[in-house]
């Protein structure tokens, strides 16, 4: 490739990051095999998944545990998790020609893929919607807005491997008026064009550019057909993938053959493996699996596999590790599972850790659950490779029949929720249980009434630690 060639294609579309495998390639709306090869990264076989981070970290997993004990390839990060300060420190990370600032700031190993979008997945609803010029985001200190130029310069500084441009998504209402829907498509197109224009006018070195995955909106085809046409005809050379916010729309994409070879990242967060299978059968190549995090926080260990084992009866998708039946079970969370948690620890320990509110419990569940998901996707790829779409659809049907529709709910307390995790609402129940109660007011009477009469020759030693005593009392 000559230099002049590069000049003509400022957004590096001469390089091909995605390759489809097999005959399925022609049909964009079916399960398919592929390879995603980003520069400097390990090739990722698809279908596959990206983990979802909170403030740049896969919840509970230190970078060494992530590297040593999971096979997570890519991490989704949200700009809103980094910009609560007026001059966000993340922008000041020392960069170099070989390291990306977002990687450096979050201590993400360079072989991992970073995916940057404006908002968390799933995003907290903002009190007001976007404006023509700016998107409303939620930082840990409150709401603020981000304009397209701001976002574009953030991307140029942070250099994520993959970037999702700003998209106008439904705000509070799940059934917005048609006027609003039309505006969503129009605004997204304007924002996308401005974003692409700003990226291509930059002088950033080619080697560390970001692949743009253009948004596909969660609105009906008649409303965004022209926007999709714009993607497939006008800006195709500047985009390298699609970020699909509404997977229901996938069948309509057959109308745009030029979009078919692009890798499709689902930003329509699946809540169960069943939804993952559905998205894959509609042609999604990579899923973001935020439900791994919420399942671990719930104290649930995933137990499903693909293709499903042939056993009688409907199987649960996971085990609630809070359940007392595990308290002496010196067996892996899943028999035969080769993950760190299952080979080094056992159900009894997991149960104890949750019960004792020890943070290690969530840590070990994250390792196990991400492993189960990794194996689930490996099973999907293997099925597709061996038997093609028909075999996949058959196995997916069996999976639906073999497993319960939803993951079990954990029966204990989750990790403490932070301000950026949710938006508090008037008269809502407290999200976090109070860590202590006023022992002297509420509980001392209760304790005193249970106390035996002290032996007359005994000395009373009463050293009071309110917090510890109250924590102990909360058990009762």
């Amino acid at each position: 490739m000559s230099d002049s060639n590069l000049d003509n294609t400022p957004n590096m579309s001469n390089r091909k990051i995605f390759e489809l495998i097999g005959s399925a390639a022609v049909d964009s709306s079916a399960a398919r095999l592929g390879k995603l090869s980003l520069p400097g990264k390990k090739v990722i076989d698809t279908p596959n998944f990206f983990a979802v981070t909170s403030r740049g970290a896969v919840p509970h997993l230190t970078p060494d545990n992530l590297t040593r004990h999971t096979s997570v390839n890519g991490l989704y990060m949200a700009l809103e998790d980094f910009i609560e300060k007026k001059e966000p420190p993340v922008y000041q990370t020392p960069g170099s020609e070989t390291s990306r600032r977002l990687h450096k700031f979050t201590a993400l190993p360079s072989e991992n893929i970073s995916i940057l979008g404006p908002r968390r997945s799933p995003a907290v609803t903002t009190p007001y919607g976007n404006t023509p010029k700016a998107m409303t985001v939620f930082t840990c200190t409150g709401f603020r807005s981000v304009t397209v130029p701001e976002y574009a310069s953030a991307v140029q500084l942070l250099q994520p491997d993959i970037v999702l441009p700003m998209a106008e998504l439904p705000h509070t209402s799940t059934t917005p008026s048609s006027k609003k829907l039309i505006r969503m498509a129009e605004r997204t197109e304007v924002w996308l064009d401005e974003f692409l224009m700003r990226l291509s006018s930059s002088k950033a070195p080619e080697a560390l550019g970001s692949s743009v995955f253009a948004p596909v909106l969660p609105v009906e085809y008649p409303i965004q057909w022209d926007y999709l046409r714009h993607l497939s005809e006008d800006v195709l050379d500047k985009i390298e993938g699609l970020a699909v916010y509404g997977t229901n729309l996938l069948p309509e994409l057959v109308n745009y053959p030029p979009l078919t070879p692009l890798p499709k990242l689902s930003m329509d967060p699946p809540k169960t493996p069943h939804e993952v299978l559905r998205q894959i059968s509609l042609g999604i190549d990579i899923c973001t699996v935020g439900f791994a995090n919420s399942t671990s926080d719930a104290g649930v260990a995933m137990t499903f596999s693909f293709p499903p084992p042939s056993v009688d009866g409907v199987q649960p998708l996971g085990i609630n590790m809070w359940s007392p039946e595990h308290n002496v079970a010196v067996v892996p969370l899943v028999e035969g599972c080769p993950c760190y948690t299952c080979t080094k620890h056992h159900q009894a320990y997991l149960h104890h850790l949750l019960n004792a509110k020890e943070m290690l419990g969530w840590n070990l569940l994250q390792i196990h659950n991400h492993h189960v998901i990794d194996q689930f996707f490996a099973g999907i790829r293997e099925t597709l490779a061996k038997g093609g779409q028909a075999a996949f659809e058959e196995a997916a049907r069996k999976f639906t029949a073999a497993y319960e529709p939803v993951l079990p709910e954990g029966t204990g307390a989750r990790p403490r929720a932070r301000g950026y995790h949710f938006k508090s609402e008037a008269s809502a129940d407290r999200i976090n249980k109070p860590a202590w109660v006023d022992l002297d007011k509420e509980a001392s009477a209760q304790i005193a009434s249970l106390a035996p009469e002290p032996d007359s020759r005994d000395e009373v030693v009463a050293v009071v630690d309110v917090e510890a005593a109250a924590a102990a009392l909360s058990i009762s």
Partner: protein
Amino acid sequence: MASNVYSAPALTFELIAKCSTTRARASILTLPHGPVQLPVFMPVATQASLKGITPEQLEDTGCRLCLNNTYHLGLKPGQEVLDAVGGAHKLQGWNHNLLTDSGGFQMVSLLKLATITEEGVRFLSPHDGSPMLLTPEHSIDLQNTIGSDIMMQLDDVLVTTSPDKARMREAMERSVRWLDRCIAAHKNPDRQNLFCIIQGGLDLDMRRECCREMLARDTPGIAIGGLSGGEAKADYCRVVETCTALLPDLKPRYVMGIGYPEDLIVSVALGADMFDCVWPTRTARFGNAITKRGVLNIRNSKYATDFGPIEPGCGCMCCREGEDGMGITRAYIHHNASKETVAAHLLTIHNVWYQLQLMREIRQSIVEDRFPAYIREFFAGLYEDKTQYPEWAVDALKMVGVDLTI
């Protein structure tokens, strides 16, 4: 047998080197789950988990002996579960050594209305408020079930600052009687060590008397207890100095509840070998990093754009860069401190490493007989000039022949 080795059924203690100036010693304590280099700091995994980090990550810091708390394990998961699982090593997947306290300290420090009688500690169950009794026999039974490599006797703990001399004497004498009961109740002397605990408050004569009584019972190791409870540091040092003067060379000496770096280095100079404290791991969760230049609160806004490691030159997983390290910056810890648990985990790894590395450096300097010079370097790192050195430390070190003022 060599004159520098002591053997008991479940441990051997090999004295490797003695400082020619201070009372500091370097030794190898071989326990049922492997050797431990002394002097040592033991991190506290209260509920069979070192706050958020995996046993593998703890192992990577070089830790070969950590604590569990008997009281907490007795509540959760409880003795029945421990029995069914096969002990605490198996529960937490830790193949190195464990030390457990007796549970007595938590009884009086955590619980309202605990009363101490000759029989034991009477308290109200935190589960249902029903009256319960912890006797020396119960404590040992529970520690036998836990299977710790080192068990502690149940002692009558009193705050050292208590003015009641008669009560202090009673506590000391009772602790001796309870040791006899603990020894009698101990079912696994071939694979678990039972250490005595010297009591006697700040009264040096009472401490001496207690030392004599406890030594007569010939436990494989000796702890100095009842300290770290708010007494003046100078008083603390006098007690440790008094006790170590009476203790045999060839047994490990454990000072309970000590963990500030300055306290560790001075206590080693006074002749102690083993220490534990929750402070390094607790303070990590508050966003504090322990360094050679003191404790840094990484939540301070000045660290928001500090892209250096937690401590330059530190060898922990967090601070190391490249293939075998994480390359964590202060800015990243600041970004997630008090927000994502990961920041707490990272500082926990760093702080545990710091404490263990400090002890490794101390040990190496004792072996090479340059410990006094190491003490000087250590204090010079913490303070700008000598006038800022804490008086208690200067005085304590003078007692053992190191004058920091010259």
